[in-house]
């Protein structure tokens, strides 16, 4: 619950997410579903909306959207149809969008997310299909003209609408991460906000705590990353609370997030509520979705995050918190299993992931995939430590090195001579040296000062440039000190 300092108000948030689906062709025509091409080179009479053109539905789109509906625990319609949403805009060639109004593919689902350490279900109101519009480039500097590229028109979109079950910007962030992860798991979309294959609009209102009625809803658009969604919501909630505290009313409007200024702004022109004049699309026929078809798709679904979580806890004996973290990224979860298959120790792999790997991701502010670590590297690293070839401290150094050079840890240890010194004879001589130079520490330790022992170990480590095996050093040091004491007492 997000409240202001007085704790008087709470926020209520609903999210609308659009994801581009990974099909080879567009939703209603056979143009390639790709981006990055020269403008207006990926269109045809259908997606250009040329006079006389007609849409034909891509069956692969239905398959992918049903996967989404299943992964989000939705009720899937037995009868689905398309409707026209009528409005004028230069990136919309027909000046209507083929979408779904009253018979969407699916509704009444939920997504379980981890929020503030607890599991929470965010209900999904509906999932429906629609075609994407083109891209506009604005020439703000000179004439104010705009330029239209229709390559993107007709890209298949799944729109996922949540109920207003989200009560804080953090929860919104968690929801988006959880949704993205789920969709990546079922391989229906790249879900990349920066590239535009996932887009998010938010509806946010505030109300006094305890009030049942929802406050005036404001729509927030133009957020280009999950972090932007969080920041925009934080700003907007505060803005609304400030207005209410001043005794004024909140205007129902659409506001745009300005990432540079870190504020939301009302749109320039006064918006009257659009009348989309929905009616059934006469150029497309309805679709019967049979239970048999749904079951067939269900069978092809990969393990979903929730199922994987249960399995990891049971099979690998991990705790929930660690599992949640590993599962939160599909590629990380796959990586975990690949490492365990190589080295057999799930706890150690988990430690590396939730430890050094997580820290690295945080400090670089990147996703797991960006680190490009190979399972062999981690497995090798674990083996080196297990076999006492290197110390735990050295392992951390090797980890950083291997991220940079992409080499196997063994190679790094060899070439840089980082091998742990464990030979008792060698260490014995060095320890003798240290003891001889630090008589006072021996006395201190025997007098009960524990830190003197640590100091002595530190000195040995210094002598060996950190390569001495700490357990062996400790053992020999203890032995020698005992001997000295015995010698003294003799």
């Amino acid at each position, binding site marked *: 619950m997000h409240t202001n300092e007085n704790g008087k108000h709470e926020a209520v948030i609903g999210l609308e997410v659009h994801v581009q689906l990974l099909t080879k*062709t567009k939703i209603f025509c056979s143009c390639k579903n790709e981006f990055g091409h020269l403008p207006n080179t990926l269109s045809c009479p259908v997606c*250009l909306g040329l006079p006389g053109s007609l849409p034909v539905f891509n*069956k692969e789109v239905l398959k992918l959207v049903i996967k989404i509906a299943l992964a989000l625990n939705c009720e899937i319609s037995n009868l689905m149809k398309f409707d026209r949403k009528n409005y004028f805009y230069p990136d919309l060639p027909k000046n209507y969008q083929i979408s779904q109004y009253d018979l969407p593919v699916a509704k009444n689902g939920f997504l379980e997310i981890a929020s503030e350490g607890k599991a929470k279900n965010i209900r999904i109101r509906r999932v429906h299909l629609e075609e994407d519009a083109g891209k506009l480039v604005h020439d703000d500097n000179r004439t104010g003209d705009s*330029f239209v590229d*229709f390559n993107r028109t007709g890209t298949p979109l799944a729109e996922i609408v949540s109920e207003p079950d989200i009560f804080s910007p953090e929860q919104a962030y968690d929801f988006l991460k959880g949704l993205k992860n789920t969709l990546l798991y079922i391989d229906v979309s790249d879900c990349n906000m920066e590239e535009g294959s996932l887009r998010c609009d938010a509806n946010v209102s505030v109300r006094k705590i305890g009030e049942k009625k929802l406050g005036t809803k404001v729509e927030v658009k133009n957020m280009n990353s999950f972090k932007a969604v969080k920041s925009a919501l934080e700003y907007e909630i505060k803005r609304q609370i400030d207005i209410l505290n001043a005794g004024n009313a909140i205007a129902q409007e659409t506001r745009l997030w300005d990432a540079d200024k870190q504020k939301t702004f009302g749109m320039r022109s006064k918006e009257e509520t659009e009348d989309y004049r929905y009616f059934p699309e*006469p150029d497309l026929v309805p679709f019967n979705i049979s239970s048999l078809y749904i079951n067939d798709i269900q069978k092809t679904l990969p393990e979903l995050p929730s199922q994987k979580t249960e399995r990891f806890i049971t099979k690998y004996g991990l705790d929930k918190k660690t599992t949640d973290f590993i599962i939160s990224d599909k590629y990380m979860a796959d990586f975990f299993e690949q490492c365990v298959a190589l080295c057999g120790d799930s706890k150690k792999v988990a430690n590396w992931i939730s430890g050094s790997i997580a820290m690295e991701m945080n400090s670089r502010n990147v996703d797991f995939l960006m680190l490009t670590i190979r399972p062999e590297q981690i497995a090798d690293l674990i083996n080196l430590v297990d076999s006492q070839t290197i110390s735990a401290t050295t392992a951390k150094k090797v980890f950083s090195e291997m991220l940079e050079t992409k080499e196997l840890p063994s190679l790094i240890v060899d070439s840089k001579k980082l091998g742990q010194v464990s030979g008792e004879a060698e260490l014995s001589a060095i320890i003798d040296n240290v003891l001889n130079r630090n008589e006072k520490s021996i006395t201190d330790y025997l007098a009960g000062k524990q830190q003197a022992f640590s100091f002595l170990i530190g000195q040995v480590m210094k002598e060996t440039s950190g390569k001495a095996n700490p357990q062996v050093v400790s053992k020999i040091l203890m032995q020698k000190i005992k001997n000295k004491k015995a010698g003294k007492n003799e």
Partner: protein
Amino acid sequence: MKIINDKIVQHVTHLARIELDASSTKAFTRQLERILEYIKKLQEVDIEGIEPTSHPLKLSNVTRDDIPSASLTQEESLSNAPDSQNGFFKVPKIIESK
């Protein structure tokens, strides 16, 4: 109460993005009023429990395979453009947002 008046016609022509002059608005309002009066007949029909027909034939599940085919070239796409530049269609300033 009139079924349709100047104000409604103005609102509807805005939705349809057609700018009529004042005399046309008046003329259309009159003509549409007559037409809508006639269409009122439909209110007589008992439609209780009747499903709407949006397609005269009972077709369903018409789809195509997810197989790409050639698109138009940029030249073909732009061949009828009233105004274009660098491969884009060019339009005047857009004030309202979506």
